[in-house]
């Protein structure tokens, strides 16, 4: 029997009085490409932090490959091993880019995990070339555009070659060209052996990067299914604020409203 990568059981988590996750259940199997769909504040980012062992449930449990993810267990060699296997790309790249140069940034992870320095230099160079950011290697992160920052943040996680990639709103705040490049990278890096969990409210991204979707609302999963099942359920998307009713006029006397989603697919 295949052991799930993550098993989330009846998890509750709150920020003071605000409940972020409310009795959540989720299973992620090896090699799955999952999208967590939900409006802002629905609990997606909190769940990703929990899957990355950065916060822990108040109630319920999270297991990684059958082993409980708990604060008192995640330290020393166990934590190193976990960090090698699971990588999280944060929504705000400024949070993730804290080193003086892009090269240092990408090298940070392997250095903390005590990889040999010569090997790190070689891998960083390869990774920068792979993500087409080699020309930025001596640049400071505050000189980069949002698209470039996102790519550096992705490189800084991919260099560890994690089995599981957690992505928080990977295309947020990107211009159309950077968004298209980011989707290409995600499609290429998620094809095959990696387990990829992406949190997003960008519906245009879903079919390209997911085999299965979970729809979030107020800290719970309210629906799950294949991308086509979810994307064709307009009532569900409307009720979870993933699309909205849009009013427009065809002529001065004729005004109508219909469900509307943003973004364009070519």
């Amino acid at each position: 029997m295949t052991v799930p990568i993550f098993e989330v059981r009846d998890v509750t988590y709150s920020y003071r009085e605000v409940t972020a996750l409310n009795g959540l259940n989720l299973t992620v199997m090896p090699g799955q490409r999952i999208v967590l769909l939900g409006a802002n504040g629905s609990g997606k980012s909190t769940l990703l932090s929990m899957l990355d062992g950065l916060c822990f449930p108040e109630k319920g449990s999270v297991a990684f490959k059958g082993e409980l993810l708990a604060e008192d267990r995640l330290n020393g060699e166990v934590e190193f091993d976990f960090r090698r296997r699971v990588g999280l790309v944060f929504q705000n790249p400024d949070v993730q880019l804290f080193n003086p140069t892009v090269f240092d940034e990408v090298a940070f992870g392997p250095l903390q995990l005590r990889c040999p320095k010569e090997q790190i230099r070689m891998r960083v160079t390869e990774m920068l070339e792979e993500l087409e950011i080699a020309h930025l290697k001596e640049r400071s992160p505050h000189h980069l555009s949002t698209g470039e920052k996102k790519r550096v943040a992705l490189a800084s996680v991919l260099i560890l070659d994690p089995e599981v990639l957690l992505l928080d709103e990977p295309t947020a705040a990107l211009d159309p060209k950077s968004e298209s490049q980011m989707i290409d990278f995600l499609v290429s890096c998620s094809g095959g052996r990696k387990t990829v969990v992406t949190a997003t409210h960008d519906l245009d991204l879903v079919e390209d990067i997911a085999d299965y979707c979970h729809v979030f609302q107020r800290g719970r999963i309210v629906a799950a299914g294949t991308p086509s099942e979810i994307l064709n359920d307009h009532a569900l998307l409307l009720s979870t604020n993933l699309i909205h009713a849009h009013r427009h006029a065809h002529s001065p006397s004729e005004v109508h409203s219909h469900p509307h989603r943003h973004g364009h697919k070519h």
Partner: protein
Amino acid sequence: MTRGRTKSRGAVERSLASLVDALEYAFYAEELAKEDGLLQKLDPRVKIVAVLPLIVIAALARRLWLIAALFAIAVVLALLSKVPLATLAKRVWLGVLTFTGLISLPALFLTPGQAIYRLPLLGWTVTAPGLRAAVYLITRAETAATFSVLLVLCTPWSSVLKALRVLRLPIVLVVILGMTYRYIFLLLRNAQDMFTSRKSRIVGRLDGPEKRRAAAASAGVLISKTIQLSGDVYLAMRSRGFQGEVFVLDEFQTHWFDWAVLALFISVALVAFWFGR
């Protein structure tokens, strides 16, 4: 911005505008540090070892012609390093002249010796030793400051941090310095955006207490954002394997060019030291 508008701004806003100006200058300095000039090509460690003796000799020299020669070398270095002389004049020479000029002003009149000029109306006498002392102070300060600023303008901040690591500064201190420099830009941009956004929604003028309340509220929001950011940065570090001890790459490589320039600079420093005794 006009003087009238500047006067109408609050103290906090003025301070912020000055800080943003300073940051813009830092951006400009980083761009200069990437130029393909002489000093930029040198290994940062070599650069420090080469230029530092010239700064010390300029500050201690007792012959005016020697100070002038060192100043000329600094100007040539600036040109070879593609640092515009206008930038040096505006950012260094004018400021140093004003500051040291004010300090040395009393020496002009109070140093005993041969009188060479009497000020009309006031009747104060400028003495020859007083004038010599003032000229020495100003030229030494100008020369030493020019070398120092060239060193800073031609070295990227990341290389300065790495050089500090090589000079055995505790790694935690160097990492904190680097992160402070990285995030101060972000936080100041946030602060500037907050002030601009507030200003765009205000019609008329706020009185003193209202201005203070608004400034206090903005400071509170900024502190809260800073705390949130620091927590998130820690989590991002933890997510990539940080467990309280930082490991970094030190990558410096010296070439024959570095050694040749170092030898040249040391020779100049020795000659200057010999003649400046």
